[in-house]
């Protein structure tokens, strides 16, 4: 297990290096410069600025310099925000994003699993049909449309919850719901299919033939086996949540990393773009690693195969 994780971390680092390199060169292709009101600056001032941030050197040299600093854990300083370090910006901004993402994952997965299980146990009844309708809507309606609708009806018309901002627990409800809809829909659809598949398996008949109660058959024998394939979609769901937060944070004015990422691209704030990209990539790769470890926890067949390696 330790060796497995060690190997995975090594691959993770390589992946990150590739992502960092690609982002660096793509970023250099962006039009414009990182400095505001550049036309008002004199040629001398410009040269000084470029020299200060090392932008006067050829791109490959800049790239190697950046990697060198990165290896030491130095993400550089922001061009826009009074030379604050990128690390500070990320640590300040990550809180709301992480809270939002985790809340949406937990709420979405729990509701999704519950809906999927109920739909499978009551397959081809009105409960099942309604779950299918909700799932199809949840997957096909983009989260920002749903966010807008929630803001208008729940926030503006009914005045039950605040429309935007990020101040107390009541501010979390709408953005979390908007993000969770897709998770609910995906998980519910998957879980329903897998539950039906597992319920048709021979070992469920064996379990029933032992005379154990139906609820035990469902909880102990069916759900666990149905969960194995569902874990697979948690990876893609994580991507969706990460890109989802970018938009949802903008709509609900959540002071998270997503909105910072978007504005840094608009302003050509190179070190912040690099920093947030690497941060998001790391988060994503770690989620995938966790998913792989989860597999082993749920499925003993995979656990043993990994152990023998």
């Amino acid at each position, binding site marked *: 297990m330790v060796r497995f994780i060690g190997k995975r971390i090594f691959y993770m680092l390589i992946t990150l290096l590739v992502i960092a390199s690609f982002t660096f060169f793509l970023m250099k292709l962006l039009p414009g410069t990182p400095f505001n009101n550049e036309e008002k600056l004199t040629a001398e001032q410009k040269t000084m600025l470029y020299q200060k941030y090392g932008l006067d050197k050829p791109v490959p040299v800049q790239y190697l310099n950046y990697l060198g600093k990165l290896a030491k854990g130095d993400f550089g300083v922001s061009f826009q925000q009074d030379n604050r370090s990128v690390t500070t910006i990320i640590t300040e901004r990550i809180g709301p994003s992480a809270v939002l993402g985790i809340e949406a994952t937990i709420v979405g997965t729990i509701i999704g699993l519950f809906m999927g299980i109920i739909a499978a146990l009551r397959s081809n009844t009105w409960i099942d049909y309604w779950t299918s309708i909700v799932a199809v809507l949840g997957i096909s309606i983009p989260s920002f449309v749903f966010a807008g609708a929630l803001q208008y009806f729940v926030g503006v018309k009914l005045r039950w919850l605040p429309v935007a901002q990020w101040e107390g627990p009541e501010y979390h409800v709408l953005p979390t719901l908007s993000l969770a809809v897709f998770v609910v829909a995906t998980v519910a659809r998957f879980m329903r299919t897998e539950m039906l598949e597992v319920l048709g*398996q*021979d*070992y469920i*008949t*064996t*379990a*029933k*033939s*032992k*005379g*154990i*109660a*139906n609820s*035990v058959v469902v909880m*102990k*024998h069916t759900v*666990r*086996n149905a969960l*194995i394939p569902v874990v697979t979609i948690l990876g893609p769901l994580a991507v969706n949540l990460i890109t989802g937060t970018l938009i949802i944070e903008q709509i609900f004015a959540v002071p998270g990393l997503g909105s910072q990422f978007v504005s840094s691209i608009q302003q050509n704030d190179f070190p912040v773009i690099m920093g947030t990209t690497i941060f998001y990539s790391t988060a994503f790769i770690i989620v995938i690693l966790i998913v792989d470890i989860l597999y082993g926890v*749920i*499925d*003993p*067949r995979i656990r*043993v195969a990994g152990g023998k390696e």
Partner: protein
Amino acid sequence: MKRILDVKNLNVSFHTFAGEVKAVRGVNIHLDKGESLAVVGESGSGKSVTSKAIMRLLPEKTSEIKEGQILFEGKDLARLSNREMEKIRGSEISMIFQDPMTSLNPTMTIGKQIMEGLRKHQNLSKQEAKERAINLLKLVNIPNPELRVNEYPHQFSGGMRQRVVIAIALACNPKVLIADEPTTALDVTIQAQILDLMRDLQEKTGTAIILITHDLGVVANLSQRVAVMYGGTIVETGTTDEVFYNPKHPYTWGLLASMPKLDAKDKELLAIPGTPPNLLKPPVGCPFAARCPHAMQVCTDHMPDATELSSTHQAACWLLDERAPKVEPPEAAVVGGAR
């Protein structure tokens, strides 16, 4: 001998999009204490459905016991509530399934799978149940049971898994064990081992066995009585000797004739021509009439009643009527030599 299970006029239907499939039509079987009965027949003859009906394991939404009684020690299982049935399943009547590769839960240790029934029916503590599970594994000849009890099904071979399935079925000392093609999915050497084990265990525990199979070789090995099923009905029933050495129904003849024989090296394998009847529209008369070489007009028009040939031997065939022509069983259906 004490009668333990008596199935009377059992009718089971499945509701499908195409209509009602009458899978089992008026089956009568009985089982005495400690006895072993084989139910033979080809795929779709209703033998598995009959066994699942006894266990009440048929899908609730799509199937229905239309008529008949399943008397187990005087209780009619067909009328019990699910909760009452749970108490009987696994403790009084249990079942072994066809495919050991799929009939164990892949994410649960085999120990836990054996213990589940024990804890439910006998209220054992975890420790006691585990000890009993280890003993059961020993009983079915699994080496190192103390270690194996904590392993998962994928760490067992097919034959080993079937032993585990048998251990699960025998956990609570059931009075009736239904084995639904227990050796079909295993290779031949393992088949013999499993059959030996089952015979051995029957002697030790005195459990009555209903063996569902299409393999007549297995029947001769394990069972005292045989019921031959075709088209959802029982066409012939008797002791194993009666059915093997004095078969009366043309379908039984066909089955016996189609058994490959070791001495018939160059002969073709015999098959019964035709296909089983469509149970969406079951025939009015004898279900075998369409494939029977001796079929008469009456066979397609009227269902034959069971004719008593001895106190144990019955066959449902119009040839046994006194007005019918005398027909001898074909050469190939004669099982050579007395046992």
